């Protein structure tokens, strides 16, 4: 679905020394749920923007669903295929009525007027926000805002969803709402690339990608990457609480069979070992 090869990008000037993306290589399969982790300034957002052709290509190659991102004539097809949701829920709405905001993308892509209400209804249902058509997005909670923003993108029926730190500005409740929505979308078969710097969110993924200084440092299933202290230390991230607990227990002489990724797994493991 997404094939990035040796992507290079520098905000200041082409060929300038400081590169935000420096040989970024990643491929995402159809239907996969990939979480990209990395600390602030590691280039995650810059990569996400490339997927939507929001930045000019400087070096390397990137194809989205077979379309070359550098090719200007594919621009609108790329944006239609690959929907993108941003971090700050307040800066994404074009209308103070949910319904109208969802219609914005549809009209831009020339969806027939008669089909629009149906699409909106379906998108709202998918994110669990049916009945909010007439509400004002500005007056909703953070989690609800982000789900509306996701619905706005879903209405266009993209194949890929790129979520750039959509939970960063939410409280735990809002984060749960959004994450369960994302997980449901994944189960329905959407390809999802979620960018995050909450390591706990990566547990849900099929594959975790660690980014550091504009390149992919390591990738693999969560059970492998999130328990690898060396990788985590290298990219400057703290391990999930449960993994930390596993290593602390090990140091204290309690050896668990399996390194747990969720609280439930940790509790289960502890019970079993007794």
């Amino acid at each position, binding site marked *: 679905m997404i094939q990035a090869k040796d992507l290079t990008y520098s905000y200041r000037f082409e060929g300038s020394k400081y590169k935000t993306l420096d040989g970024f290589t990643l491929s995402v399969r159809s239907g996969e749920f990939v979480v990209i982790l990395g600390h602030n300034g590691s280039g995650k957002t810059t990569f996400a*923007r490339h997927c*939507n052709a*929001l930045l000019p290509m400087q070096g390397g190659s990137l194809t989205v669903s077979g379309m070359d991102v550098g090719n200007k004539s594919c621009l*609108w097809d790329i*944006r*239609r295929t690959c*929907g*993108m949701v*941003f971090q*700050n829920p*307040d*800066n*994404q*709405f*074009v*209308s*103070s*009525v949910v319904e*109208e905001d969802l*219609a*914005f*993308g549809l*009209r*831009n*892509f*020339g969806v027939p*007027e008669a089909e629009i209400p149906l699409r909106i209804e379906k998108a709202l249902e998918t994110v669990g926000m049916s009945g909010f058509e*007439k509400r*004002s997005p*500005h*007056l909703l909670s953070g989690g609800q805002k982000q789900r509306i923003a996701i619905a*706005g*993108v879903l209405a*266009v029926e993209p194949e890929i969803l790129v979520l750039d730190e959509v939970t960063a500005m939410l409280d735990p409740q809002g984060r749960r709402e959004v994450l369960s929505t994302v997980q449901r979308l994944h189960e329905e078969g959407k390809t999802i690339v979620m960018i995050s710097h909450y390591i706990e969110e990566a547990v849900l993924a099929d594959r975790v990608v660690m980014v550091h200084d504009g390149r992919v440092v390591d990738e693999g299933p969560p059970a492998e990457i999130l328990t690898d202290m060396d990788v985590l230390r290298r990219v400057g991230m703290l391990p999930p609480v449960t993994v930390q607990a596993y290593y602390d227990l090990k140091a204290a002489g309690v050896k668990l069979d399996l390194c747990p990724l969720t609280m439930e797994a940790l509790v289960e493991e502890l019970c079993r070992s007794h």
Partner: protein
Amino acid sequence: MSVLPTGLYQPGQSVLHRLCPWVKVLCLLLLLVAVVTTSTIWGYVLLAVLCACLIVLSKLQLQDVFSSAWRLRWFFALIFLMNVCFFSPDDPWVEWWIFTPSYAGLLQAVHVVLRVFLLLVMSNLLTATTAPLAMTDAFHVLLSPLKLLRLPVGQIAMILSVAMQFIPTLFEEADAIQKAQTARGARFDSRKLTEKAAAVLPLAVPIFLAAFKRADELSLAMEARGYRAGSGMGGRSQHLAWRDGAAFVLCAALCAVQLFIL
């Protein structure tokens, strides 16, 4: 959300809600002309009755229509007093320093306050019954003659309606920044003008920066959702119904009555 200049859109199904947006804007313009040119009691009575009918038709809550006028009550009081005191230097009741309150001034004050109030109520009726992007389409249609001058009409229309929606957000932000700076010792409540100015200036910079950042993010989000500046959009067909024609004829007639009869 308490700082919108005019009423926030209230979703509904009334006749007013269903009028074609650009016809509605055009009607508002006609009524504005009528308001500005009124000068007799009967003129005001006619317009007030019209407003009352429109409010009933719109099925809006009174509070939605009048809240912005209520928020401006001090402004109304001020223009009233200014007109009474300064309008006519001849034939004052008393003369004291620079103040010359007079009967002519009082009359003028009543006129001005009534007109501004009617204008406000009417624009409120428009914004409360027209969804923001429908307003964009209305601007688009009404400004389209400017296309002959090669002005980017579609973009101007979009800018207008998005800007209107960001006003409350910016106010909230200003409030947050003000609190943050008060916490760090800025003195917004000082009586001294110099100190006050010194406190307000640093407020301006972060607000501008925040606004630019917002604008930047919003434009990216819009682009990602397929907005193409300069093409597409606005091509939405807007069917005119008989009620649109009726509304226009009614407003035009009212405007003519005000201009030529009353």
